[in-house]
């Protein structure tokens, strides 16, 4: 087990190193951030001064070395645009993203799982068709469109909800719905297929043969087992919701990490993009690492195979 964990840690570290290198190089392919920080008519001297100020006049490998050495000291650099430590910026936005992600996840699970169960139990009937339409719409309608329609309807016409920003429970409702809808559809589809698989299994047939009530078969025997892949997906989705809810956070002016990433990309704020991508990647790596360990704990074959 110890060897297994060491191996997993090494893989996780390698993944993060490759991610850091990739994002460091990719942001630099997008162009010169100095051009966005000065007026288009600015002189070469002004541009050179900005390059010097931001450390962009140094060779690429020197910049990467500085980035990595700072990273090991827990310093993610200073934002080009905000001139503020990026970690400070990230941490100031994280609580908002966690709140939004939690609300969106709760919505997506509360809608996705029951509708998935209903669709599986009533397969090829009205509920199943309705569920398929819901999944189709959820997965195909872009969240910015959903968001804008909601703003128009609930804010402008009905006047029930604030159009944007944060601060009260009412502010969370629309962004949580817009963000959660796509995931609700994904969770619904997975729950449905997982439930169908479990409902066709031998032990469920046995439970039914034993004369157990159908409700008990579904809730106790089928649902519990069908839930495992759904929760695994939900875990990964939660990390995605926290880090890359770019569109929803921008539409609703929600001050989260996704919007920070959007601002970083828009302003070519290299340190902000590097940090948000790296921290988001780190969350995924850590979640995957923990899942691997848990699987290994649960199933000894995994740790011996590897």
């Amino acid at each position, binding site marked *: 087990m110890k060897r297994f964990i060491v191996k997993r840690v090494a893989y996780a570290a390698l993944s993060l190193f490759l991610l850091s290198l990739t994002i460091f190089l990719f942001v630099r392919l997008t162009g010169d951030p100095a051009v966005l920080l000065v007026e288009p008519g600015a002189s070469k*001297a002004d541009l050179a001064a900005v390059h010097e100020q931001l450390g962009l006049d140094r060779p690429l490998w020197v910049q990467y070395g500085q980035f990595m050495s700072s990273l090991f000291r827990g310093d993610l650099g200073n934002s080009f*645009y*905000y*001139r503020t430590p990026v970690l400070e910026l990230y941490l100031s936005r994280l609580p908002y993203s966690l709140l939004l992600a939690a609300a969106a996840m709760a919505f997506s699970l509360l809608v996705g799982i029951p509708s998935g169960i209903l669709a599986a139990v009533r397969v090829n009937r009205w509920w199943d068709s309705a569920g398929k339409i819901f999944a189709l719409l959820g997965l195909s309608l872009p969240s910015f469109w959903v968001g804008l329609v909601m703003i128009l309807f609930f804010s402008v016409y009905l006047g029930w909800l604030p159009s*944007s920003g944060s601060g009260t429970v009412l502010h969370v409702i629309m962004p949580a719905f817009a963000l959660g809808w796509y995931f609700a559809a994904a969770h619904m589809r997975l729950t449905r297929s997982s439930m169908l698989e479990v409902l066709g299994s031998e032990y469920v047939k046995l439970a039914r043969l034993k004369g157990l009530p159908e409700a008990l078969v579904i809730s106790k025997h089928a649902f519990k087992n069908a839930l495992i892949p759904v929760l695994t997906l939900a875990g990964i989705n939660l990390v995605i919701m926290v880090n890359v809810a770019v569109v929803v956070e921008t539409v609703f002016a929600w*001050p989260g990490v996704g919007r920070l990433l959007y601002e970083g990309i828009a302003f070519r704020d290299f340190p902000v993009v590097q940090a948000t991508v790296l921290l988001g990647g780190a969350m995924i790596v850590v979640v995957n690492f923990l899942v691997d360990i848990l699987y290994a704990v649960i199933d000894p074959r995994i740790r011996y195979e590897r």
Partner: protein
Amino acid sequence: MTRSRASLVALVAAVTLVTGGPAWAQSAGSAAPVGQMTWASHVALAPTWFDPAETPGIITPFMVLYAIHDALVKPMPANAMAPSLAESWSMSKDGLTYEFVLRKGVKFHNGETMTADDVKFSFERYRGASAKELKAKVARVEAVDAHRVRFTMKQPWPDFLTFYATPATGAAWIVPKKYVEQVGEDGFKKAPVGAGPYKFASFKPGVELTLEAFDGYWRKVPSVKTLVWKVIPEESTRLAALKRGEVDIAYSITGPLAEELKRAPGLALTPTFFPFTIWMIFTEQWDPKSPWHDKKVRLAANLAIDRQGVNQAVYLGYSKLAQSFIPQGLEYFWAPPPYPFDPKRAKQLLVEAGYPNGFEAGELSGDMVYGTAIGEPVVNYLQAVGIRLKLRPLERAAFYQELADKKLRYVVQNGSGAPGNAATRIEVNAVSGGRYAYGSYPDIDGLFSEQANEMNPRVRQQLLFKIQQMIHERVMFGPVIEPAFLNGVGSRVAVSGLGLIKNHAYSAPYEDLKLKPRP
């Protein structure tokens, strides 16, 4: 400086003080500030905007600077160079020294009194746009006494005030020396202290800024107690927030949303202007093998565009039609005769140039925003007369990089909102060595050098007018439009501050803002 120039400057300052006096001296007996005014900002607010030392040469930071800080001289309503923290100034006859007399009793938000040391410190600390040029030309700054500052030039520089006293730089915006030294550079950005009408209250980077009225402001006590800027990047959301009354002013509402805003009851669509022009550069006019070498072709391109049609379609008719690549609001602008929309004459010119069936004209390159919005109709109009161009929109930074490197060919649609005057625009775009100049003419270069050392403003104006005439006669550019900046104003607002200051896109001066009394 000539005697007439010195007299003119003194007269302007005196007239401003006299005529502006009553409006500027309303502090006595003013009611206490009340209420809150909220803006939906289209851009993310940055802490660098709290510090005049880092002004990047764009107008946006002045959105905040006008509230927190104050300058010796700055653009104000009806005066492009209004005495503010300086009561008056004068220039020596030889044009080598400028002396500013400071207003007495001006307080910073922390209670310190502004002195000449603060002015000298603010200039020396300035590191924003054109800092190198400014400091290279200024030999020294001296605090003559507590209320008198003297700037000595290395040699006469006619554009000193254009750089020092306008949004071209932030060097004249004064910060408290003692406070900055005490809290440090980062500390100052976190808790800025200035001499402006509003003091810093709180800031969430990229999210929200809150300021509170400063009742010790020298000009007048502001009428509105609290100012809040909320960053709402999405245009539709800004409009929704305005309609719901969550914000009072929404910046940058364009196209169909502007139409909707115009129709919305209780809301007002308010355009503002800043010195921003969009124009075509005929990059191949110096190549004898190119069709663009022929002046008739360049003139045909100018006559083929229905500028009013573009204005109506994109800006609901609120923009100004460009007459030159230099904006109409800049000092030393010469107004050329506008190009009429005359496709028949354009086709005739092409026939005369030897292109009766038109010609394959290459590409029209532009940035993603204006290159598409304005470039698309422009390309369509040119194609209609036979100038067959393909639109090539580029990402903004890549566009300006390629433009600066002179990699873009055929026709380029450029845009600039850089502050300054006609000379600074000509320098960048139309003379040898200019950052975006694809070529030039020796006589224009010669006249440009001549005006750069001319201290007599009248003679200098004549030279700059002559240069602009030559540029027009040679059809060096294809001016298209001076886009309006369209904003929405809510029903609670009595004075929005939009358009009060010429060439300023945002609300200002903030101490003049007013909310309507509650019914």
